[in-house]
């Protein structure tokens, strides 16, 4: 039990700081965003589990040899009034901290959910007054505003994609289809659940490097996943144009512009010049520039075996703290 609590604490520290820093700087997630997403989820879950688990096993150490024995001992003290003399002050402190942290995480998760739902409800109310259903696309609303904007508002059967008529005026039919496929991929793949979980993780532990890095990376990864989905429908340059037009809010005077010669030879997008931007390097969030450079200089996905290795690592990350909690005897 004693060793288990140290091992869990070590795991918690590693997952809270060095691992997320390394992963957020790695280049491979852009090549296999799904695999990276699974890994981030495993890191967050295993991190939380080992943080709480370390304090719990430390505190229960005098009461039993494993988690179940320990909890049973605790129940006897709390419910049946058994003598608590074996528990020192540090143990009581560790147990209280574990319970507070657990409650804090669950409470923040629920509170974040409530905030998001309220935000969506409010936004839906505004849309009800100010938007009209699109004539040619189902589950799509149009707001009257010259600024090009496109987003989706998740909500089960009431999920909608919202477009401004500024966007409709600026984009060609193919570019619009790129936008719609991208947004529908967000809805179909339930990305809002990931955003919720990581927003809550961030809100619960804002001082932890992992929560900020994880939220940023997850935000980027879901855009990559939706982009990849859109690439199934439209060609690369159409999507790039759509992102550039919506991001800058301008459309070139006619269809010329730098992209045209490139669009004519889509096999050689690597020659594309102007994407050496500050912010595309180091730990800064990649943002729109990073997303475009990923689209313009496509990299092959990770080899199969490497993807499997990452997935196995994710499972291992979850299995280790669980085993340490339930059967610390394995370590002796």
């Amino acid at each position, binding site marked *: 039990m004693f060793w288990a609590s140290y091992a869990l604490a070590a795991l918690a520290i590693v997952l809270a700081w060095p691992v997320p820093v390394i992963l957020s700087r790695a280049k491979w997630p852009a090549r296999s965003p799904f695999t990276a997403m699974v890994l981030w989820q495993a890191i967050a879950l295993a991190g939380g589990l080992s943080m709480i688990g370390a304090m719990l096993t430390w505190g229960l150490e005098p009461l039993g040899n494993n988690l179940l024995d320990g909890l049973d001992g605790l129940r006897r003290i709390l419910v049946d009034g058994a003598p608590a003399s074996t528990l020192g002050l540090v143990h009581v402190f560790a147990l209280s901290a574990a319970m507070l942290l657990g409650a804090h995480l669950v409470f923040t998760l629920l509170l974040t959910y409530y905030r998001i739902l309220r935000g969506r409800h409010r*936004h839906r109310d*505004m849309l009800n*007054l100010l938007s009209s259903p699109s004539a040619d696309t189902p589950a799509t609303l149009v707001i009257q505003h010259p*600024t090009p*904007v496109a987003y989706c508002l998740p909500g089960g059967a009431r999920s909608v994609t919202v477009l401004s008529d500024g966007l409709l005026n600026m984009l060609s039919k193919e570019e619009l289809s790129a936008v719609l496929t991208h947004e529908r991929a967000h809805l179909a793949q339930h990305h809002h659940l990931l955003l919720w979980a990581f*927003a809550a993780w961030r809100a619960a532990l804002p001082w932890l490097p992992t929560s900020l890095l994880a939220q940023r990376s997850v935000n980027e990864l879901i855009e990559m996943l939706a982009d990849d989905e859109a690439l199934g429908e439209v060609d690369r340059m159409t999507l790039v144009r759509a992102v550039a037009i919506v991001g*800058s809010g301008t459309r*070139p005077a006619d269809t010329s512009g730098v992209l045209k010669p490139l669009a004519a030879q889509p096999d050689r997008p690597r020659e594309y010049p102007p994407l050496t931007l500050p912010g595309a390097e180091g730990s800064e969030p990649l943002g729109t*520039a990073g997303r475009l450079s990923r689209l313009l200089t496509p990299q092959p996905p990770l080899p199969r075996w490497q993807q499997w290795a990452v997935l196995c690592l994710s499972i291992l990350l979850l299995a280790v703290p669980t085993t340490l909690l339930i059967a610390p005897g394995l370590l002796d």
Partner: protein
Amino acid sequence: MATLGELERAMMDLLWESDEAATANELREKLAQRGDSADGKGLAVTTVLTVLSRLEKKSLVQRERDIRPHRYRAVTTRAEHTAELMHEALGTANDREAVLARFVGSVSDTEAEMLRRLLGA
């Protein structure tokens, strides 16, 4: 029968069109005249009042209580409300990303400049 949402929308359209405050009865007649999607024809004054009080609760409608019958007017103009909607859609608030997923997130000035160069605009 129109849903409450549709009625709220028709009501706000009416109030946004006129600068004057109007009583519930006047609004009911205007809706009846219009007879469009919101189907104001068979509308009871109580329904109109329900819709108005819902809108009042949402701070969209202001009630003038000094003389009876009470008169109602829109709190903001349609343009202001649209601006607020756009602000929500484009804003950079922390949980914004979780509320709605944008096609392109917030773009910094340097990024916007780069995108314009990219488009040759």
